[in-house]
């Protein structure tokens, strides 16, 4: 039962962070929310007994995707639609 509760919470967090990506106008914040999303989905994979995938997602989502997104934001612009 308590596993179900953990599951539910993680899924709620997933949906909330996805909505945050939708909501934020600051791209850096959106990227952070996407990073958060990556962490949570990695935990979800972990709970669903897929440690291989969880490692992949952790390494890729937590480490590299965020990094290259931030580099891209640095190379372009930070705010959606120019300066805030």
């Amino acid at each position, binding site marked *: 039962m308590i596993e179900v509760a953990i599951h539910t919470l993680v899924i709620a967090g997933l949906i909330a962070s996805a909505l945050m990506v939708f909501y934020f106008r600051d791209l850096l914040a959106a990227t952070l929310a996407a990073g958060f999303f990556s962490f949570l989905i990695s935990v979800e994979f972990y709970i669903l007994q897929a440690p291989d995938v969880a490692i992949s997602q952790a390494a890729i989502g*937590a480490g590299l995707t*965020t990094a290259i997104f931030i580099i891209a934001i640095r190379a372009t612009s930070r705010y959606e639609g120019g300066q805030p």
Partner: protein
Amino acid sequence: MIDPWYVAAFLLVILVCLALVRLFLGPTPADRAVAVDTVNTLSVAVLILLGVAYQQIIFIDVAIVYAVLSFVSTLYIAKYLGGEL
């Protein structure tokens, strides 16, 4: 008897969800970065606890990867915030 590992993991997941609030509210990106950093730390604890709860020793490797690699994205964010990237 409820497994204490599960209970601990559950409580930590609740804390993760609370950190989400700071991620949402945080007025500056630095606040959000702090929230994400906190979540990284908590996630490692959650992963370790769940690994023990599942009685799967090999799951701890995931936690190590997580502990080491989430640091890198934190550094990228910090470097960008400091205008050094």
